[in-house]
């Protein structure tokens, strides 16, 4: 088991390393560099030379990659091209905000999704299932900016219950984001609930039709005991991976929501950095998001393995 864990960890590290090379190479291939972006029209002749000298841009790309990578390993992501601030500090605050948003959405979304998924799976083809399944399809297909706008219109413009936009500054402590964070959380939770609900529903249906549930019924096990003891532990296994993908999405892919609600998260910072051509920041965020993806998926795989006796005993009993 430990050997298995270490091997997966090693493979994950290799993945991150390869991704970091691709990110670095991608930024390298783009026309221009940090200096041309920073100096804009003055980027010529002596000034450009000096700038490049100062930022060590004249050394071969491989050497610069190794420097960047080893710094990143120590938590030093370099300085931004615009304003020469420490990227680690800038990103740190944004990452916290993104984590806050993700955590809230997960706390609300995952239990709701699992509960509703189980309900619609158990009452398959009944009215409650039809309502939930159709609702899920709507939540998945309506673009987030539309549902976000509608929610803002209803809850902050018409009813005036909740603030429609986040005005707290990026470096503020977590508690100050309430109640501004509620609407973005609701929008995110809706989308993720829909995805998880559908997975859980189909998995519950499959398990409830399995031979072992039939056997448990014929063994005289009461219905709810079958559901909780025989069916759900098996039905929820596939949900782990969907939840993992959702977490990764919440941390890096919710740019649209962050823009609509003016939420100072990682995604919006990335967009800003791209439009400013702040390449070191783009590089750093891409690396962080990639690491999160790898880390979360690794955790999900390991959790599945722990939760599924078939996989677990493969490594614990020889």
């Amino acid at each position, binding site marked *: 088991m430990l050997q298995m864990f270490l091997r997966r960890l090693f493979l994950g590290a290799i993945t991150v390393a390869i991704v970091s090379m691709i990110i670095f190479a991608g930024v390298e291939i783009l026309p221009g560099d940090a200096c041309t972006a920073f100096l804009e029209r003055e980027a010529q002749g002596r000034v450009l030379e000096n700038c490049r000298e100062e930022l060590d841009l004249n050394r071969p790309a491989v050497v610069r990659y190794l420097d960047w990578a080893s710094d990143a390993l120590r938590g030093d992501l370099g300085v931004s091209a615009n304003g020469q601030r420490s990227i680690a500090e800038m990103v740190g605050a944004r990452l916290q905000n993104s984590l806050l948003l993700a955590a809230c959405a997960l706390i609300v979304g995952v239990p709701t999704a699992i509960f509703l998924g189980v309900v619609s799976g158990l009452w398959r083809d009944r009215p409650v299932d039809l309502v939930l399944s159709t609702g899920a399809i709507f939540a998945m297909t309506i673009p987030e900016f539309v549902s976000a706008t509608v929610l803002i219109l209803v809850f902050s413009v018409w009813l005036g219950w909740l603030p429609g936009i986040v005005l707290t500054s990026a470096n503020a402590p977590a508690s100050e984001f309430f109640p501004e964070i509620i609407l973005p959380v609701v929008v995110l939770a809706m989308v993720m609930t829909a995805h998880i609900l559908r997975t859980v529903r189909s998995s519950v249906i499959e398990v409830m039709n399995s031979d072992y549930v039939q*056997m448990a019924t014929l*063994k005289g*096990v009461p219905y709810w005991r079958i559901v909780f003891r*025989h069916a759900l532990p098996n039905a929820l296994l596939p949900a782990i991976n969907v939840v993992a993908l959702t977490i990764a999405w919440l941390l890096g892919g919710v740019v649209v929501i962050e823009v609509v609600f003016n939420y100072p998260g990682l995604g919006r910072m990335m967009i800003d950095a791209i439009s400013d051509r702040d390449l070191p920041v783009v590089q750093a965020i891409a690396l962080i998001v990639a690491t999160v993806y790898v880390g979360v998926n690794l955790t999900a795989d390991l959790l599945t393995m722990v939760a599924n006796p078939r996989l677990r005993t493969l490594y614990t009993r020889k």
Partner: protein
Amino acid sequence: MTDTPVIQLSDLSIGFTGRAGHTLPVLRNIDLTVRPGESIGLVGESGSGKSTVALAAMGYLKRGLRVLGGTARFEGHDMFALKRRELETLRGGQLALIPQNSGQSLTPTLRIGAQLTEALRLHSRLDPAQFPDRVLELLGQVRLPDPQTITRRYPHELSGGQQQRVAIAMALAGEPRALLLDEPTTGLDVTTQAHILELLRDLARETGMAMVYVSHDLGAIARVCDRVVVMYAGEVVMEGSARQVLTAPTHPYARGLLASIPKLSDPHLPMALGGRPPAPGGAGDGCAFVDRCALASDLCRATRPMLAPGPGGAPVRCHHADRADTLPMSSQGDHAARAEAGTAPVLSLQDLEIRYSRPGLLDRLRGREDTRPATVDDITISIAKGETLGLVGESGSGKSTILKTIAGLLPPAGGEIRFDGDAPLPRSVEQRGPDHLRRIQLIFQNPDDSLNPRHTIAEILEQPLKLYFGLSGTALQDRCVEILERVRLGGHYLDRLPSQLSGGEKQRVAVARAFAANPDLVLCDEVTSALDVSVQAAVLELLNDLKAAQGTTYVFVSHDLAVVRALSDRVAVLYQGRLCEIGPSAEVYALPSHPYTEVLLGAVLEPDPDTAPKLTADDVIELSPPAKGCPFQRRCPRKIGARCDTDTPPWQTRDDGHAIRCHIPLDDLHRQQQADS
């Protein structure tokens, strides 16, 4: 013992609503009475409704089914009128089921101990403190070794036979008065099956439970049942004592069923039962069996016969039961086509060694040799042109593995395969030329898995024809029809999808696809194991006809010794990937035998209530072959001592080519076996 029935089904009809809105019956007017301590066998082809009967006795219906009329009573309780709570106390308690596939019927995330304890908590009056001891006692009662360890295992960590025993232990937990068994040994090895059946017989005798035993296997039914009910198309067509039904059946269907079973003692091919049962609701006004019956008359087409006492007194649903004894009921089919003697070998395997495990990257870098015994080792066989070689052995004996290696799907770790006297065949399928690929064809066990469900039969057959012969247009079309006709399906099948065909028809298409390539060597991997006996007989007949017409060579893999006997010229017996015995079929099935062959043959169940299997070795599972000595050393009932553990036994060959690999001299072996039988 009182005579009040434990289970009583009266005039029970069950059906579902079809696509057109019609009600289609799956069971029609079933009357069935089971008295305490009695064991009843329900037989019939797949789709005859026998499992539905067993589940209905528990008040359980599969999704979509509903009761159309009649009642199912257990000790007087009307099972379909009971409340859920009341059903829960009866089910698994006084009335227990042993499912067909225990592997899938045990909850994968719960340990065996937890699942047994649950059954006790629900149905046992014992003090919960005694549960752990009772669990061990139950596991001991079903003769599982080391119950303590078993309780901590998950279902997937047990072998098929062990899982089945756990299911039986679970059923016994509630001390049931009636036990329903839904094909409980289908899919198990012959030896395991025989042991499980003996266990059930003993348990029934000890506890006085009634048993309803559902199976298509008349051999198993003959072994455990007093009374047999034959079902066809959702009806009871005959009912009587096991002896009556199995030795003097008065219904044409029962006779046909018996004639389609290959028997160990009989080298003839079994007789196929033509046609197929009607779909639910398709039986019309007359007798459901009319289209397949040799005695069918206008009366049969017009009116449905009633279940009435026939000749010999047993109730039978036939207008012409008095003439049923004119129909054959033993396998009077053809003799299998035989190879001409003395032809050159088409295929020869030389010291074939196959491994599934591959050394890890680190071991390869360090140049370490794999010291574990190979999965399949030391296989040297040559097969003459037109010959059929049967490969038999239990699951895990490596028979299918060898086929895969011959086909090039699994490259061997050592040794060579020579085909048609050529240079050795390339090891894997990618390295083989189109001519080799064409000449060696493989037919798989399950046509549901081997035919692409989205391809029509035409597309399936066209592929080899285009690929190997470059046919196109009308030539291609004509050839497809011709091939279909050769497997006794017509051109009208071309546009159908596999899902629109019955199991037997699908397997014919699979055979047709293999023969479309005009092969010299056809590898058959358990090709009849997924089929009903009547269909199996038809496929065997087809394979035999094709062989007679084209001189094809077969390697025929099966776990069913009687099937192998019917078709093969020579038989090779495998244990743990090693050859034990090889020779002409008549010799291998006669004495002297390798002790393993003896164990296998002893466990075969004949559809005759007067025979009993001879069980010698335990049905323990072995995960890997021993590192040295005889592969069968751990289970051998005739082991002679340390020599078996350390020395690889020599081949002892007789003049007729019959060879046995054993330390015991053949004459001694023969004498011992004669004395025991």
